[in-house]
């Protein structure tokens, strides 16, 4: 359970840490996050040397490798601006695990400083930007899957739905067992493919049964998993990162 976080006033500038999955597979989501922030009059700095937060190696037990990857990110945010991460999973890694990964090393203070400035995108939009949204889209019914990292590691079960609630034409339905994991879990999906498949199968069935033709999520791992399952079955249920959804409907 994440500790209660005190939110700063709206800053002039922020850093965007795009995450490796967005960089390679869902770059539009990263760009849309940037557009949402810029529309609020916030200058977005995208450090060009960013790569990956190191989480895949970390959860696999390869902490030496994870630490080096993380260390390569630590120096990218020299000014005291907030660091916005459009992923609960990577945000959770940076906020919760960086301090412990560097504990006792020369970079510990820097790791703590970075961790303290990390905000998940929807968290920042709700609690710092108090984001106003004017819905220009057609009316539709959607579901949201909040990632386990956002929900539990970062304590952000409500920020995604809070943003969607501001879209007047959108009805958000809750699928059965909404808080249950979709089965992605990074390398879990590869190491235990059958169990993971059973989990994502149940998740897609629940979303469909809720009557949603579309689902949004704030994590691209879950998106890749759930949308990949829908596509594999030839089902007409579309998945989208919440940043893209919000931008698309309000621009």
């Amino acid at each position, binding site marked *: 359970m994440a500790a209660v976080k005190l939110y700063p006033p709206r800053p002039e500038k922020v850093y965007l840490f795009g995450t490796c999955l967005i960089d390679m597979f869902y770059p539009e989501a990263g760009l849309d996050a940037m557009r949402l922030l810029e529309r609020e009059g916030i200058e977005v700095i995208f450090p060009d040397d960013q790569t990956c937060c190191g989480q*895949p190696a970390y959860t696999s*037990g390869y902490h030496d490798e994870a630490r080096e990857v993380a260390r390569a990110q630590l120096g990218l945010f020299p000014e005291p601006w907030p660091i916005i991460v459009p992923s609960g999973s990577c945000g959770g890694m940076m906020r919760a695990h960086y301090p412990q990964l560097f504990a006792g090393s020369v970079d510990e203070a820097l790791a703590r400083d970075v961790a303290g400035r990390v905000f998940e995108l929807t968290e920042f939009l709700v609690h710092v930007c108090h984001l106003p949204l004017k819905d220009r889209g057609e009316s539709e019914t959607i579901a949201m899957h909040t990632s386990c990292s956002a929900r539990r590691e970062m304590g952000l079960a409500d920020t995604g739905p809070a943003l969607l609630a501001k879209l007047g034409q959108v009805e958000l339905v809750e699928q059965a067992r909404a808080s249950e994991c979709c089965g992605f879990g990074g390398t879990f999906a590869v190491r235990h493919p*059958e169990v993971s498949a059973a989990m994502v199968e149940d998740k897609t069935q629940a979303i469909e049964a809720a009557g949603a033709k579309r689902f949004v999520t704030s994590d691209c791992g879950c998106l890749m998993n759930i949308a990949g399952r829908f596509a594999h079955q030839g089902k007409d249920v579309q998945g989208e990162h919440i940043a893209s959804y919000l931008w698309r409907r309000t621009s």
Partner: protein
Amino acid sequence: MSAVQDAVHTYTPREFHRQAHDALGNPQIRDNFRRAMDGLMDKRRGVFSDWDLETLRELGANIRLRALAKLPDLLEQLEANCQANGIRVHWASDGDEACRIIGEICQSHDARAVIKGKSMVSEEMHLNAHLEQAGIEALESDLGEYLVQLNEQTPSHIIMPAIHLNTDEISEIMHTRTGTERTRDVDYMTAAARQQLRERFMAADVGVSGVNFAVAETGTLCLVENEGNGRMTTTVPPVHIAVTGIEKVVEQLRDVPPLYALLTRSATGQHVTTYFNMISGPRKPDEHDGPREVHLVLVDNGRSSIYQDDELLDTLRCIRCGACMNHCPVYTRVGGHTYGTTYPGPIGSILMPHMLGLEETKDLPTASSLCGACGEVCPVKIPIPDLLVRLRKESVGQGRGNVPGAGVKRSAKEVAAWKGFEWLATHPAAWRRTTALAGKLQKLLPSSIGPWTDYRSAPKPAKASLHALVKRHRRGEGES
């Protein structure tokens, strides 16, 4: 009746993948667990609704941590107070020694029949098999344990041992093994079991039980139960042997109410169990019932090793409520037997590697999506996901080497892969070239990538990476 066994079916953690495959393909198992776990999660949510749960969990964690901080002193105090109360105390370094001690006590009374209350520690040390080898019959009296024993199985859940079986299957087992008429009437089956077991309670020479909390301050053994078999086991036979892990001790009597409140609510969503049975000695000269002799067997079996390490220590806070398995999306789908260990689910995956070694249990720490549901509901706030990661770290040889079998999963191929990842992710220019190239080559990339694409479509790298899109965006070029 797939779950009704004709012969002993043994499960092993080495075969996790095969066992998971079998369980996933068994609709009966899937359905039994899904419904049971949904019910348990709902009940737990309801029963905590009017509590300041976080404060209570904080207190629970704090009480357990305090007990562990003083563990050696408390064990000595427990021993002294138990002895002063007339309870004989024995110490066992491992399961075999504990079995030997219990066997010897039984033999000293010429015992032929042992009746058992529910005890996971006795499962951990395979007590029943040991006693049977010595010609002593050990009969389980908790209804779930009894059914599982009739079916020559092991428990699939630490609180609800027969949760993998449905009513029809249980009816078939009772019919085959005890001649009970086939029925779907649960009351009828319960009454039949009551009748069958009452004779056995009267005939038993020794009762063996577990312990939920052992109170150092007063030399008191606490047992939590609903059925009354625990009270029977600890009251009817002339000799009572309680067996427990050394970590179950708490400092004071006042530590018990908060832990009991957390245990019953977390386990089964009950405000309280039917019985809370606190035993502080054998029958006194003027008393008319209760055992003439009470023994306490304190079992280490790997616990003192776990105790050495500041991080792993948290494992020993566990009060065995089973909430972690009830809320685990993996356990819910594969069931308890798939793990092949005495303790299944998340707690088993962080505990069993210490008892069996990582070689035997190498698939358990990875059998989790790290979704955090277990840690979220743990009544004593064990950071189970962090401990799973720690064991993964030990498996690949990057831990402190404090777990038997550390390094067993280290392979040159995997190390090379992660070194490659590290190199790429620490060389930003190369990273950018790689993501750009992946986008250009997307048509050439395989649409089938191992197990992922057996169930899902393959993700396609975008034509332009976020790095590239941001550059265009900055130049004010047309986007997407």
